């Protein structure tokens, strides 16, 4: 869902840059307050894992693929602000080094896939866990639901940005983006649940780290 240069008009690109800069600035403040020694290696591993996993596009239907975003996973393990920080690192490297996602569109991509994805994923996960209990089932179902929703919400934001930029009417962009990403979100949900299950089986204590 990385928006390339050329899709957004100046106003939309500038507005999302301003909002994202504020969000990332606040993430840095929160991280500075709450990150402890134990978070550091997990931050490194999450950044590496999300970058690598994002390369692995999986087919979702004839002629269309999707890949993990990872914002929900990072936010569930580390908290939404720390998750947004990692996602921002991934998106910056992808734009600057790999020419995936435009540099003028970086603000929008950070807004959709770092800020929105992490917060939607994290709070839906928390909601499901508080309903189903802090157990294995609650964590896995919450992880799936949060991850699915993170992709869906990011896709809706992306559709709105495209429409605001005059690229395509909202009535066209919204169902198209929401429809295909509802499918891609299933992949996001499954991968997130598998990783959470692996973490619970091997290092369950990592799930108990203070959320940032």
């Amino acid at each position, binding site marked *: *869902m*990385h*928006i*390339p*240069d*050329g*899709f957004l008009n100046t106003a939309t690109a500038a507005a999302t840059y301003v909002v994202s800069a504020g969000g990332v600035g606040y993430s*840095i403040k929160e*991280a*500075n307050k*709450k*990150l*402890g*020694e134990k*978070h*550091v*290696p997990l*931050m*490194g*591993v999450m*950044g*590496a*894992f*999300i*970058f*690598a996993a994002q*390369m*692995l*596009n*999986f*087919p*979702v239907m004839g*002629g*269309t*693929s999707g*890949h993990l975003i990872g914002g929900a996973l990072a936010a569930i393990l580390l908290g939404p602000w720390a998750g947004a*920080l*990692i996602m921002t*690192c991934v998106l910056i*490297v*992808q734009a*600057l*080094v*790999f*020419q*995936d996602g*435009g*540099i003028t569109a970086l603000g929008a991509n950070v807004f959709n896939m770092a800020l929105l994805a992490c917060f939607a994923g994290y709070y839906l996960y928390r909601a499901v866990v508080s309903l189903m209990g802090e157990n294995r089932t609650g964590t896995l179902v919450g992880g799936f639901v949060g991850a699915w929703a993170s992709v869906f919400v990011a*896709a809706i934001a*992306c559709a709105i940005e*495209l429409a605001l930029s005059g690229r395509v009417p909202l009535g*066209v*962009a919204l169902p*198209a*983006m929401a429809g*295909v*990403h509802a499918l*891609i979100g299933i992949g996001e949900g499954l991968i997130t649940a598998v990783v959470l299950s692996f973490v619970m089986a*091997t*290092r369950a204590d990592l799930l108990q780290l203070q959320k940032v």
Partner: protein
Amino acid sequence: MKLKWWHVGLLIALGLALISPLASSWPDGLERVAEDKGFIEDAQDPSFEIIPDYVFPGVGSEALATILAGIVGTLLLFGLSYGLAALLKRREA
């Protein structure tokens, strides 16, 4: 040196980079919508390229070039997010 959990985590990420040539090359969700709705042509070429499209330049085999790009990016992201976290973490008294 004893293998710590996060060494294993990094190895798993590098393992994913190794299988990256298996990824589907079909357009992703946004590219699909842009093609179907007729605005894919509006995408501009990047103003500079370093490792465009996850293919390491100057490598003959595309699979190898993809793996190399994946390893470079995975290590870069590990260093960047680890470094940022180490910089930001609370100072322990």
